[in-house]
Structures are given as C-alpha cells and as structure tokens.
C-alpha cells in the first residue's frame, strides 16, 4: 500500500466566525495575510516532513473558502516539486471542467512533472458543487467540459511532433505544442474521484486510479462497479493499486490521545459542509431525476457503518466515524487493524489518502501523528497482503 499525506491547508482561525457559510460568501477581511503566511509555511514544512518520513503527498484545491487555502493547486505542486525529494505528488484534484484554459493546465502539470523528475500523479475531478458559484461555469455542461479538457490535456502531453489543431465544443486552439514535454511516458498517471457507481464504470473502462471519500463501508459497491467494467475492457482484474480511499488518520501511543487528535482532525468533516444552502446543489450538477427525489425529501445517505447503520459525517461522534471507516483512529495496532479490515471490505485498496492534519491539530501533534504512522503502521501496511484481486473481480461477475 502507498500512503499519501493530505491536508486541506485550512485557514482554521476563521472557523468559529463563519456567519453560516465558510465558503463562497465569507468575507476575506476575516483572513489576515500574516496569519495565512505562517499557516502556509507550516503546512509546507509538514509536507516536507512527510517526504522525509517516506510518505507520498496529496494536494487539492477549493475556492473562496476558509476550509482550504490551496486555491490554485499548481502553486502548491510547484513548491513541493522543487523542495521534496522522493514523494509522489498527487493532485486530487484539478477541477479541469471549471478551468477556462486546459492548455494552461497541461503546461503547468508538464512543468511540475519535469521539475519533480517524474513524481506527478495527475488527478482530474469534477469538483464539489460549491465550486460552481466561484468559477461560474455552467453546471449543466460541467462534465462535458471535463471530458473535453481531459482529452485535450492527454493529447497535449502525448504529442511530440509539432503542433496540432483542436476545435472542440468548448476549447479552441490551432497551434498546440507544449514545452516542456512530460517526464513520465506516455503521461503522468491519471486519477479521479467519484461517489457513484455510474462514474466508477467510466473510470474502470479507462483503467484510471479511482478514489472515494467518505463512502465508508459503502465503498465496496463503487469499487465493484469499477471492477466489472475494468474486467470487461482489459480481461483481467484491476489490482489494489487502482483503488484509493481518503481516510482521516489519528494515531497516538494511547487511545485517549488518539481520540483527541481524531476529534481535531474530524473538524474537517464538521466544517466542510458549512455552506450557504443555495450553493450546495446548483442546477444541472446532478441529474434531474436525482433532483426530483431531493425535492421530495428523499436523499440517499452516503455513509454507513460496517453493520449498515447510517452515519452523518458532519455530526457523528468519533466512535461512529471509526465504525464507518471514515476515521482510522487509535494506537498503531488499532489503526493497522482498522485499515486492513477496511481493505478486506473493499476487496483491495492500494492507496490510502491520509488526512493526517486538519483544522486545529497543532504542528507538534501533526508531526507526532506522521512519525508514529510512518514508524509503526506504514511498514506493516507495506507488508500487508491485499485481498486477491481476481477473487474480488470474480465475486462481482458471479
């Protein structure tokens, strides 16, 4: 298993003064740039520590929010491409359907792949609903734009013999020929995220690495949808390395301290959905049939415990978050047991996206969390034998 350390680089000092919305509308006068600078430096120091400890690194971006100061992920990638030495640098993700200019995205990512000497993992995502208000892209066409931008970026990274022409539905260029060319051939690995079996099937056909977040013990059915289409396309089972899961991780030498850390890291879950309601579900972001169900007051829950109990990520107590496979928390032994049990549920999960820092967790707690994980848990996870991939795929087919 590989483990990618991830932090949203929150501006948590504003969390208790949010006027009902931490995103989109929260006035930026509540952001002190001096405090923000200190936080940024701290977060990049922590990423550096993750690199030193042999962990990989994940970055993301969100917009107009105190939950995540990384608003242009290319900035963070650029810093870490130069300063880190070994870590894979995963962007998960780049909301390319929102971007006006995929040529710029291809150029940024190619440069980062080269500067890092081939350490980039390239996650492309739709983006959460709130991003629509910030980008003002039409939510109805977001996925169409996403796939055209994706196709363009891959074409730009894999074309090496002079210029090519692109006159699509959304993007128009006549002389495309990016410099520098990418380091990894034919292009950096592509990742994406989803919460739906429908999109999982699309990703399975492409063989991309698929990540889910907050799906807990409902993850298996999404992975299985991927497995089914992957087998249909490639004639073999996808390995555990095709699957990724974002989990909150709090390790300590005793359970009490681990739970304290878990509660602080869960601050991410508590604050992430604090958004003025009209921005939560822009029209066209979801299919009309799903919105009709929502109008009727029928929204399917997202997170379940192993026993099938529904859990609210925003309000659930720590024990429920652990039971749901959202938070992995306890002593190193506890966390190893929880993670491997989760892998068994998934039928194999080869990439843990570890939220090992969030919110009010201090720098000292964060570093201790990383060190304990890297020393006591990670070596055992590396040695852990994932469930048999062919057996997992065969179970779907049966």
């Amino acid at each position: 298993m590989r483990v990618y350390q991830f932090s949203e680089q929150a501006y948590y000092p504003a969390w208790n003064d949010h006027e009902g919305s931490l995103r989109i509308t929260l006035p930026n006068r509540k952001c002190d740039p001096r405090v923000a600078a200190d936080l940024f430096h701290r977060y990049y120091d922590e990423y550096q520590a993750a690199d030193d400890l042999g962990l990989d690194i994940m970055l993301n971006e969100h917009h107009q929010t105190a939950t995540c100061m990384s608003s242009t992920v290319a900035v963070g990638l650029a810093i870490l491409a130069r300063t880190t030495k070994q870590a894979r640098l995963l962007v998960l993700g780049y909301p390319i359907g929102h971007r006006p200019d995929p040529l710029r995205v291809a150029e940024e990512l190619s440069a980062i792949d080269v500067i890092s000497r081939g350490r980039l993992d390239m996650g492309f995502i739709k983006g959460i609903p709130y991003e629509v208000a910030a980008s003002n892209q039409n939510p109805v066409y977001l996925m169409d734009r996403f796939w055209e931008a994706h196709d363009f970026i891959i074409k730009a990274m894999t074309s090496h013999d002079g210029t090519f022409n692109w006159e699509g539905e959304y993007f128009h260029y006549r002389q495309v020929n990016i410099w520098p060319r990418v380091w990894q051939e034919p292009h950096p690995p592509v990742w994406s995220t989803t919460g739906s079996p429908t999109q999982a099937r699309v990703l399975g056909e492409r063989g991309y690495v698929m990540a889910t977040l907050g799906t807990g013990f409902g993850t298996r059915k999404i992975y299985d949808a991927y497995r089914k289409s992957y087998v249909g396309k490639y004639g073999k089972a996808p390995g555990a390395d095709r699957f990724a899961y974002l989990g909150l991780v709090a390790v300590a030498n005793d359970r009490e301290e681990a739970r304290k850390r878990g509660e602080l890291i869960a601050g991410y879950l508590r604050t992430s959905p604090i958004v003025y309601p009209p921005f939560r579900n822009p029209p066209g972001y979801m299919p009309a049939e799903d919105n009709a169900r929502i109008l009727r007051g029928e929204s399917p829950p997202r997170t379940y415990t192993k026993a099938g109990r529904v859990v609210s990520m925003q309000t659930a107590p720590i024990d429920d978050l652990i039971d749901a496979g959202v938070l992995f928390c306890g002593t190193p032994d506890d966390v190893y047991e929880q993670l491997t049990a989760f892998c068994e549920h998934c039928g194999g999960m080869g990439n843990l996206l570890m939220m090992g820092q969030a919110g009010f967790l201090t720098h000292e707690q964060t570093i201790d969390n990383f060190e304990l994980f890297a020393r006591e848990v990670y070596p055992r996870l590396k040695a852990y034998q994932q469930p048999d991939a062919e057996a997992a795929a065969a179970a779907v087919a049966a």
Partner: protein
Amino acid sequence: MSLAAESAPDGLVVDGARIDLFERGSGKPLLFLHAENGIEPSRAVIGELAKHAHVIAPTHPGFGGSELPKGMRSVDDLSYFYLDLLDQLDLSDLIVVGVGFGAWIAAEIAVKSTARMARLVMANAVGIKVGDRETRDIADIFAVTEPDYLAMVYCDPAVGRRDYKTLPDAEVLAAARAREATARFAWNPYFHNPRLKSRLHRIRIPTLFLWGTHDRMLSEAYGRAYCAMIPGARFETIERAGHFPHEEQPQVFTEKVFAFAGKSQERVA
C-alpha cells in the same frame, strides 16, 4: 386540476425532437411561450387566453416532457427551433406572448423574423443587460433559498409554493427539469444575450410590454429601458403581481393581451 390531468399534451416533432404542445381554443393563432418555471404554472392563463384565441403552448425543449435537440445550447438556438415550428405549422398573423424567459425567446425570434407575426407581448422579460458590468440587473435566483426566491418573484409567495411530497411524479420531475433547463440556457451570460440589445430595433411589429410591479428579480426601470429599445413598444403595468403576472393575475393579463391584440370573432364556450 393540472394541465396534464385535464388532458395529455399533444406531441409535435420539430427538428427531430419531440416536444409537448397544448392546443386550446379557436380563432386567431396565439403562441404562448412559458417562463423559466415551466408550463405547469401557466395553466390558468392558457385557459383564459383560449377563450379568445387558438392558443398554441409548447413546452420548451429541455423543460417538462420535451426533448432537447442535439447540440441545442442557447436561446438563440431556441429561437431558430421556434421559427422552424412556425414554418412547420404554417402559422401566420400570429400573436406571440412570452413571459420572463419565454419573453426572451420571443424577442430572439422577432429580431430574426416577424414575417409570421402580427403582435408581440413580452411580460417581465429578461434577455438583455442595461446596467454597467458591476451592476447586477437580474437578481441571482440561483444564489437564494427557495423561500427567498418565492418572495422575490411573487407578490403573494403562496401562489408559487409547491408541496413536492404530494405532487405527481411527472410534475416534480418537471420542476427539476425546469431548473436545469433554465441553467442550461441562462447561466452564463446570466439571463441575457449580449448581442440582443443591438438587434431589438429590427422588431417593427406592434409590441406590448407587460410588467408585474412586484417583480424583485427585475426592476421596472429595467423593463422600461428594454421596452424603449423596441420601436414604438408600449409599457403597461399589472398590479398585485410579480415576475409571473400571468400566474398571479391571469384575467387582467388576458384582458391586456387582447385589448392590445384585438379579440378574434370566434369564441369557445
């Protein structure tokens, strides 16, 4: 009773897409172009208008049960779709009545051709921008809660309130589709076509602007500025009505339409 419950709409295939279309009454042809909230809330006014004219009321592509022709993305596309519909039905001497988003479609049709049209009525119309780039002429309906939206667009918000738990499935889906289709056509640029303003002078048939005075999505000043760009267009207000005056005052709305357009000889019982 809902329109759908009274009778199923007739279907019509235009440019390869099947759309729902209600036809009621007889006499002069009148094309009714519904607003952004779909055709269902227009049931009362369609009944009123049909007492004096042959009302043809399509559900716009992408709304209700109407299909979306491949590649259709803009109100400009919609206007060509309706020009094809007018040709297909071979309509002439037509009264065109549009409300809100439907009035924008009507304007986009009329700047291209009024050959089949005798009169144009635009109620609480969107479609242009009159203020500077930092002035929001048209309130952001996607950035407010449902209760705030209803208070914005109705004089009496109760008129627009729906109990989605008890409505038939088709109507709930139609409400969801209306919201999606509105975004499809009006998200960005927001409820306007930057090119339309400079074309409005081409509308040279008698035109009436109707304006529900309690509209807080649009200002009356916006409506008057819009009206002034169409040669000779008249502007009349409707009291105790907001952005959808045909819903809140269907009879007054109908009287004003026919006071302007003239009633047909034939009447329907």
